[in-house]
């Protein structure tokens, strides 16, 4: 038994949590050590998740906690989607933590690293848990630590954005708790598989209200169209490392939560059409607002909003292909957007300004960063040979495969949005390369800032050239993500 303890998936949550709890004591011993703790935790998570991936592709693992079988105790459902997300979280978390070593210098540095680790732990917990209230608890961990981190710079914008985010986000959480109350009142259990097993036994109005509450609540975090007022402010005024995490991970976790609840618990079909339309509306609004911005980080934030719409659309197509495409797009967006935010973080750090005009001619002053920025942009637009191309293609193919007129129209709108996206991103690239720089001197980039960005760039190119590497895993994940009956069967065994 002892030999298998170290590969128990619960360690993915517990080890970073324990490290975060232990950090203040380490900080008392030596202050410099604190900034290496997130790296340690994420390195552990990355190794363990990569180790677990081949196993869960065959059979998802059910981990019951505190010694009782589900539904009597909380259980983790460690399926391929969960592990895939866990790999993404720990990869981006690791790279961002390395970036943060030299980037975060002012303010409560120790506390920043603790909150950073806890945010990532919360995200990991959400994707692994199989209990609806446990999901809420981890969701709160994610949200509250991001409220605090958005305010980290303590300037006017940061505090304002954090306040706005906090009020809207905690209202969303309140709705989720209310929805959980309804579900508990109807079924007397909190285990998702147990609820899913019984969900046909109740008439629809109460269930519909519960579902609406869940979509609203998680939708605040996922930035679905009418609920996304906080996003551009929060993502643009946070420190760049946190913007990368929020844009690259937190909002995807919101989407994961929505679709986990919808696929596994409710399984309604009519709502998906509505969600697909909302997704495309979010996409168009996001891209059009990004078009008008003059602040580089706000451009990226609005573009994140647009990408969220695209992912929601893909996941609401309602076929395995669509889900696979949506998951692929999540990976694309995570890698590209964190790359972009990290690059921009360095540009803003060097030029001390977030205005687009201050980026004039940076292509000559910091060639490598600008090159990587261009890779990220091309990948987001969906140009070959970068990762964005196969993912967007698979979404379009999945939509066309359904053969419905509505989806056809939506895909045309999506292509239109891509064109808008292309225009404003090419404008930035033109500013980077074809405007005359104010000064001639070159910036020197420290290695800890350069290394994560280069890794992300390499990953984008590598997966873009060999998308087949990922495709099988994604298809298998999509099957398990979508299939409610097998979820119930796996949890209860037999």
């Amino acid at each position, binding site marked *: 038994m002892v030999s298998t303890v170290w590969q128990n998936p619960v360690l993915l949550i517990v080890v970073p949590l324990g490290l975060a709890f232990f950090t203040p004591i380490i900080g008392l011993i030596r202050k410099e050590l604190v900034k290496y703790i997130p790296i340690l935790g994420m390195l552990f998570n990355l190794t363990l998740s990569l180790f677990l991936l081949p196993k869960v592709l065959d059979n998802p693992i059910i981990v019951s906690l505190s010694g009782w079988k589900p539904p009597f105790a909380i259980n983790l459902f460690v399926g391929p989607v969960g592990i895939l997300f866990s790999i993404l979280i720990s990869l981006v978390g690791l790279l961002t933590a390395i970036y943060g070593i030299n980037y975060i210098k002012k303010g409560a540095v120790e506390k920043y690293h603790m909150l950073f680790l806890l945010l990532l732990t919360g995200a990991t917990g959400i994707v692994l848990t199989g209990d609806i209230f446990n999901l809420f608890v981890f969701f709160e961990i994610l949200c509250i630590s991001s409220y605090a981190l958005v305010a980290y710079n303590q300037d006017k914008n940061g505090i304002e954005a954090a306040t706005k985010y906090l009020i809207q986000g905690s209202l969303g959480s309140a709705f989720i708790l209310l929805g959980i109350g309804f579900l508990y009142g109807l079924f007397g259990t*909190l285990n998702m598989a147990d609820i899913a097993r019984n969900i046909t036994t109740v008439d629809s109005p109460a269930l519909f209200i519960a579902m609406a509450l869940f979509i609203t609540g998680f939708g605040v975090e996922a930035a679905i169209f009418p609920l996304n007022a906080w996003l551009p402010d929060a993502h643009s005024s946070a420190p760049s490392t946190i913007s990368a995490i929020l844009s690259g991970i937190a909002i995807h976790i919101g989407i994961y939560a929505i679709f986990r609840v919808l696929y596994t618990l409710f399984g309604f079909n009519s709502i998906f059409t509505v969600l697909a339309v909302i997704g495309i509306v979010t996409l168009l609004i996001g891209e059009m607002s990004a078009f008008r911005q003059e602040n580089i980080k706000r451009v990226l934030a609005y573009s994140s909003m647009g990408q969220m719409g695209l992912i929601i659309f893909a996941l609401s197509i309602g076929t395995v292909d669509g889900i696979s495409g949506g998951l692929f797009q999540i990976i694309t967006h995570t890698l590209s957007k964190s790359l972009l935010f990290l690059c921009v973080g360095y540009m803003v750090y060097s030029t001390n300004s977030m205005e687009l005009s201050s980026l004039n001619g940076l292509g000559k002053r910091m060639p490598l960063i600008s090159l990587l920025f261009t890779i990220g942009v091309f990948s987001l637009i969906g140009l070959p040979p970068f990762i964005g191309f196969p993912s967007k293609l698979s979404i379009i193919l999945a939509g066309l495969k359904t053969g419905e007129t509505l989806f056809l129209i939506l895909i045309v709108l999506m292509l239109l949005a891509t064109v808008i996206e292309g225009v404003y991103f090419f404008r930035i690239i033109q500013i980077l390369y074809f405007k005359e720089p104010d000064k001639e001197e070159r910036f020197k980039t420290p290695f800890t800032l350069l290394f994560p960005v280069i890794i992300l760039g390499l990953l984008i190119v590598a997966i873009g050239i060999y998308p087949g590497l990922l495709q099988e895993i994604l298809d298998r994940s999509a099957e398990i993500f979508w299939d409610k009956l097998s979820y119930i069967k796996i949890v209860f065994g037999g």
Partner: protein
Amino acid sequence: MDFLYHNIHFIGAFGLMFIGLYMIAVKKNLIKKIIGLGFVETGINLFLIIIGYIKNGTAPIFSKAGLDPARMVDPVPQALVLTAIVINVAILALALGLAIRLYGHYKTLNVEKIRGLKW
């Protein structure tokens, strides 16, 4: 009257939530909004406890012999509400911290006078 009699607990819980949501939506003072947030959470907690209540039930504690488990109220919502109360205090403390900082920057808590905040 009969309706009131049977639903008075639910009216209490949802009335509190209603007032809280109204305060968040309409009031312009940040502290008032935060008080409203507290009311919403208290209302939801009340709702959860009401769900677990059984008429003439006893508290789920076997403090003396002869208590019948079938007559006890549901312990799970109580556990959930314990969690929710603690979460609530963390959120409120953070919100008040932010309000203090915001006041330091703008010398007002009226969200309409604070530049970027559109609610």
